């Protein structure tokens, strides 16, 4: 489980948050808290990079939906990147891929998010 989402990168106009290991228990709420911090600072473009995440379960999904709702409310942009196939399939089954663009790599996500108009 990613206990502390201290791993992030702030770029001009967007922030990338890196998760690691697992997103499968309520400690994952720290991911949501970290996002809240940047949203409150006025960031409206957020990338969550799952390159190191092995497993996301229903608890993890509930946390990600919380983030999706918040970014939707502020009319921000959320991209996911680096999803492993197993996690991509879960997002697909739940229909999340319809609402959040997913990129193979963080770089691709950054390139696209900066050209996306709010």
């Amino acid at each position, binding site marked *: 489980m990613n206990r502390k989402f201290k791993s992030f990168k702030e770029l001009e106009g967007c922030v990338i948050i890196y998760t690691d290991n697992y997103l499968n228990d309520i400690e994952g709420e720290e991911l949501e808290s970290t996002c809240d911090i940047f949203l409150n600072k006025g960031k409206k473009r957020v990338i969550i990079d799952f390159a190191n995440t092995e497993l996301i379960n*229903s608890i993890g999904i*509930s*946390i990600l939906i919380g983030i999706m709702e918040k970014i939707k409310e502020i009319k921000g942009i959320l991209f996911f990147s680096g999803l492993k196939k197993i996690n991509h399939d879960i997002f697909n089954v739940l*229909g999340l891929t319809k609402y959040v663009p997913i990129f193979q790599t963080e770089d691709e996500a950054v390139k696209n998010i900066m050209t996306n108009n709010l």
Partner: protein
Amino acid sequence: MQNTDPRLERLLFNLDALAELGEELTSQKDFNRVIKSSLYMIIGTFSASKGAMFQFDHEQKIVHPIASKGIVNINDMTMKLKEETVEEIISLKTPIDIKNNDKVALLIGMGKADLEKLKARILIPLVVREDFLGLIFIGEKFSREAYTKDDIRLLSVIAHNIAVTLHSYSLLKKLMHKYDENKKLYENLSHIYYDTIHAFATAIDAKDAYTKGHSHRVSAYCAAIASEMTWSHKELEGIRIAGLLHDIGKIAIDKSIINKDNPLTKNEFIELNSHPVIGYEILSRVKFPWTEIAKISRCHHERVDGKGYPDGLKGNKIPCGVKIMTLADSFDAMSTDRPYRPALSASEVLIQLKENCGKQFDKDVLQSFFSIIRKEVYGENRPAILPLLRDSFAYQLKSEVLNGSINSFNPSKSRRKRVANHTIV
């Protein structure tokens, strides 16, 4: 997976979620965490954006929030439910889609504002065998798609599992409450028990102006010696009580004999010496948790050389508890004033103890007693004996110890084994 039927994929995801829920609900984690995790699992499984779980308090007839996600100020949302409302909720059995269903909102006494705040879309009653345990609300799906019949069926299974957990937790809480009540009752009874025994000890000592506090001191000396001999906590309690009651037979002895300052006549001597047997008769009728209390009272004037009374027991025929009691009783008698003589000095007491080692007193018990005194004087033990002595006597005793008069005492010149057959429990 790309070529797999999406419905099968969905089913597998649901099965995974159910398996994880089962694991969570049966885990040893903190109850609040289990409940919160369970709610998050439901929300995640259906890609809902919000949700809350409420527990029913059977005494106050209210439902109060125990977990939530995505809802602010949820703690204000405590709802009072009428008896008939509870019955109607129980009759619902399955999760209800409450969109545009004012009847359900009215049923649980919530206004539209509350439902709006909860963003509630599905109401899930938590019921086990007609026992209403609470409610779960979950909000719209993130996709804003409707909940399907399959979703409702899955929710029903999940809700039942959560309800069983809540039910078990509620039973456990009731059990813990009963346990706490019984524990308090036991502690009260225990206090009454000890207070009564202390009152008896005070009454015993009150017969003799010279022996005020004797039973309490003997009790403390006994416990200190037994502790030095590594008796268990339960055994220590037993000998502590035995110390308080060892002279209970004196209650039946004429006060004029006990307090007589001249030599006793033969008949008076016989009467006074009957107090251990009278004590035994009194105490053997009481069901103590420690079975040898009556025997210790009977035998506390026995001697290891067999010249004691009333039974003339010798050596290992005398239980260790009795040997401890004999020493503690004699030490207190020698170190305090008696009607027929003033208290002995510490030096005289030590000489008496040493001279009577192996005659009146058991060697191992005496060694343990000296060991405690030494440790107390040198600050190695929390003082248990020294504070009970008269100041002048305690001062003399410390001087004796510092001069090495106890150190030189070594009846066997080798470390003795622990006395066998010491258990008084």
